[in-house]
């Protein structure tokens, strides 16, 4: 495997312009002859398919849910960044670029991040033209709020439903193309495998989730926009159907997987409260604009609170520890996510946690006093309501309880400047690629990246790839490669089901559900490869995951059969991939003997508990290559060269 990031020559600010000026194009008449498969209808997938369809390509788009509008992007609350400088507070492309690189702890590729910042403004223009109802001020112009890791207000938002509105915008554009016939929609279809012909991605095998039938689709290029793999941890802020399988089957077919250990833990989620819990709910980061985070200063107070003998409102001001404001006076409650999460964990591990012991307070009493209840309600009303529905507590009266949870995966399929993976013709966009966020993503940047990839990057770079594909003619789905891929998928399904038939004969005692194993896997990963990792915990995790996988094959039970609507089978298929992915995440975490962004190795920290990078040894992207089930993967390094930016210690104090 040879990594070529294909970064165009020239000064950083001119790279993208130069690229566009010299790339190859496909003439309009030929576009109709080229087929493209897009997997995923989130921001990245929907925007890419809509743009490619409008350009004249033939697009087939797939999603698991019953409608493209339900992709997990819909759940993003807080907002989307763009260097518009509408607030005249000194924002610029350059500053957004710097913030993102710094936020990512100097582990992202300069050229990609610069391009992202460069097209960010156009995203907002595009969305407004589509009718996305962004918040406005009384003069009728667009409003902004500030987000973690930035000292300017550059975040555009639509109430607490920004992701929803952006996705509905893209979904509208997609719907228009579907109506025009340039895009064909396939819902309730799960991609099961990638078909590679002569080293190029030429199609996919999907399972129709309603009938259970396996179907083949062939195309000149495939775009993977299937989101992140946060559900590896079982409990996360991701949706139930979010999964890593689509990316993983591509990895198996030869696409390198980069930086799998970079997992983002979001500081403001509703704490876990029971075993039966199926997911964690995010409370938008925007809450940190006005909410203050604290725990009791005295351990006795924390204990009394946990025992239910004391109420948070009874603790006087001087006995509260606003630890973020204390430790990071410059950024205060608005430090980046990884920093805020670790600080919460530090306090709870030290015995100052409230609730179950794994929670801190997010208090709005000051904001309510300063701004009035009405203003607070206007800004955060729906979030408060959501919190109350779940916890039965009123955040206007008593502080919210929050705790960090798995939220986003910076790691993903390795892509070059053109967003092409190491398999030619296979592109990855959105959270599915290893992205522009380095070791930590700043708030409101994932939406920006997904839409940048789909609207403004892929439509250019894919043409560069497709320009010479007009000569190959229609791709056939009946070649031996397709036969083999379909047979392999069938075999995988049979393995899972055969096992079940056996279990059934043995009676209930030995049976375990898929969820049972997924929960167990999640616990291992959270415990030993979560917010803090060290050699021992990772070694332990590796062993436990292998054991669990063996156990899974021995006693998992999937009811029903493969030729019907069968959610248990879907989950099992994904879990099988998670076992392999888990091993890779652990290996990657093990090999990266430094702390950076979301990856915190307790062996590598400063005296006051901050991350300690090792730029000498680890300033690179780790791209892993699959070697077969149970085999350790090989790693290729893509060195990160910083020509433009001055590398510094990441400091938010």
């Amino acid at each position, binding site marked *: 495997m040879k990594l070529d990031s294909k970064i165009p020559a020239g000064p950083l600010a001119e790279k993208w312009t130069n690229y566009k000026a010299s790339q190859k194009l496909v003439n309009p008449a030929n576009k109709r002859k080229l087929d493209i498969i897009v997997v995923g209808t989130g921001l990245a997938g929907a925007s890419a398919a*809509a*743009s490619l369809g*409008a350009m004249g390509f033939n697009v087939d788009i797939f999603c698991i*849910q*019953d*409608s*493209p509008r*339900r992709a*997990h992007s*819909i*759940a993003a609350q807080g907002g989307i960044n763009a260097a518009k400088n*509408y607030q005249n507070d000194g924002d610029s492309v350059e500053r957004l670029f710097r913030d993102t690189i710094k936020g990512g702890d100097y582990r992202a590729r300069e050229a990609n991040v610069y391009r992202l910042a460069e097209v960010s403004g156009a995203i907002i223009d*595009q969305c*407004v*033209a*589509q*009718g996305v*109802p962004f*918040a*406005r001020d*009384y*003069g*009728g*112009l667009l409003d902004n709020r500030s987000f973690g890791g930035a000292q300017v207000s550059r975040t555009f938002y*639509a*109430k607490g*439903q920004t992701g*929803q*509105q952006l996705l*509905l915008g893209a*979904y*509208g*554009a997609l*719907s*228009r193309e579907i*109506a025009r016939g340039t895009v064909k929609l396939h*819902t309730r279809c799960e991609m099961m495998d990638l078909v590679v012909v002569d080293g190029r991605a030429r199609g996919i095998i999907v399972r129709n989730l309603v009938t259970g039938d396996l179907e083949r689709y062939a195309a000149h290029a495939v775009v993977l926009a299937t989101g992140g793999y946060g559900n590896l941890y079982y409990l996360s802020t991701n*949706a*139930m*159907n979010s999964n890593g399988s689509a990316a993983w089957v591509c990895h198996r077919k030869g696409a390198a997987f980069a930086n799998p250990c970079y997992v983002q833990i979001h500081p403001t989620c509703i704490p876990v*409260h*029971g075993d*039966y819990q*199926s*997911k964690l*709910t995010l409370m938008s980061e925007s809450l940190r604009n006005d909410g203050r985070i604290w725990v009791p200063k005295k351990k006795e107070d924390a204990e009394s609170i946990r025992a239910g003998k004391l109420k948070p409102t009874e603790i006087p001001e001087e006995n509260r520890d606003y630890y973020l404001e204390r430790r990071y006076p410059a950024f205060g409650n608005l430090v980046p996510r990884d920093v805020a999460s670790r600080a919460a964990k530090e306090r709870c591990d030290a015995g100052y946690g409230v609730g179950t012991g794994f929670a801190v307070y997010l208090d709005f009493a000051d904001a309510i006093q300063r701004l009035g209840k009405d203003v607070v309600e206007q800004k955060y009303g729906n979030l408060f309501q*959501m919190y109350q*529905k779940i916890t*039965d507590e009123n955040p206007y009266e008593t502080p919210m309880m929050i705790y960090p949870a798995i939220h986003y995966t910076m790691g993903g399929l390795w892509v070059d400047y053109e967003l092409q993976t190491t398999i030619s013709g296979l592109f990855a966009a959105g959270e599915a690629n290893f992205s522009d966020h380095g070791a930590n993503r700043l708030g409101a940047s994932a939406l920006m990246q997904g839409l940048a990839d789909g*609207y403004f990057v892929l*439509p250019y770079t894919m043409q560069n790839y497709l320009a010479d594909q007009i000569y190959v003619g229609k791709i056939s789905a009946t070649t031996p490669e397709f036969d083999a891929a379909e047979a392999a998928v069938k075999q995988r399904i049979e393995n899972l089901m055969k096992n079940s038939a056996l279990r059934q004969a043995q009676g*209930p005692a030995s049976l375990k*559900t898929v*969820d*049972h194993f997924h929960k167990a896997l999640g616990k291992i990963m959270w415990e030993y490869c979560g917010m803090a990792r060290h050699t021992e915990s990772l070694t332990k995790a590796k062993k436990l995951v292998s054991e669990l996988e063996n156990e899974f094959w021995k006693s998992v*039970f999937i*009811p029903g059969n493969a030729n*019907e*609507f069968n959610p*248990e089978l879907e989950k099992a298929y994904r879990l099988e991939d998670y076992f392999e992915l888990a091993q890779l995440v652990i290996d990657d975490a093990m090999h990266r003997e430094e702390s950076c962004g979301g990856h915190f190795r307790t062996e590598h920290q400063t005296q006051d508990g901050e991350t300690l990078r090792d730029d000498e040894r680890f300033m690179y992207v780790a791209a892993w290559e699959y070697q077969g089930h149970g085999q350790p993967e090989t790693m290729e390094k893509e060195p990160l060269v910083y020509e433009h930016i001055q590398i510094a210690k990441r400091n938010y104090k």
Partner: protein
Amino acid sequence: MKFTLHIWRQENARAKGHFETYPLEGISPDCSFLEMLDILNEQLINDHIAHPVCFDNDCREGICGMCGLYINGRPHGNDDGITTCQLHMRKFHDGDDIWIEPWRAKPFPVIRDLVVDRSAFDKIIQAGGYISTTTGGVPDANTIPIPKHKADMAMDAASCIGCGACVAACKNASAMLFVGAKVSHLALLPQGQIEAADRVHKMVCKMDELGFGSCTNTYACEAECPKLIKRQNISRLNRQWIGALFGRDRK
């Protein structure tokens, strides 16, 4: 807590379907409704080697619109302004009988158990529920100021999650709230006005064609909409429709 569940079971679209009764014990009041079903399914699989109850869900935080169960006579259950995934067991009484049915409407056929096919909604949007734009070549976002109250009203209408509770609740299985919300969202914005007449015409024709009923101003939709979309949006849809019938700017 302890419950007796009566759940609609139907193997596939062609099967007849029937209610099945399941007793369930030891449920925490803090458990969400879908988590309660997870627990039931775990038991069904483990103890009875039976096929679990199928139900649609994804985000489990009330935004994707995927979940939707008709619980004891109310879409999304006995609480206002929430989706099924946001319903918690503390809203029930210990020992309650809980009847769980799928959405019922001609354009929403059952796929399995409690899962229905809502692609009819996508088809309505495809008929014209968007502003025609192509990527790039649009003006700067601040070129057209929009009065805040208009933008806010558009946002309220746009917050529809496409769950279909309005159809499920309506005695006529009418999709007017869903269509009204989209038509309103776009008609309230200057960008959306250009295609307004055409849009409303196409969307309503599609809605009729797919077999949704028509509105009789019963407002069950408004009462059950998890996003509290108001009936005023249906009124605006009617107004837009009249405008489209008599207006000149329709293709």
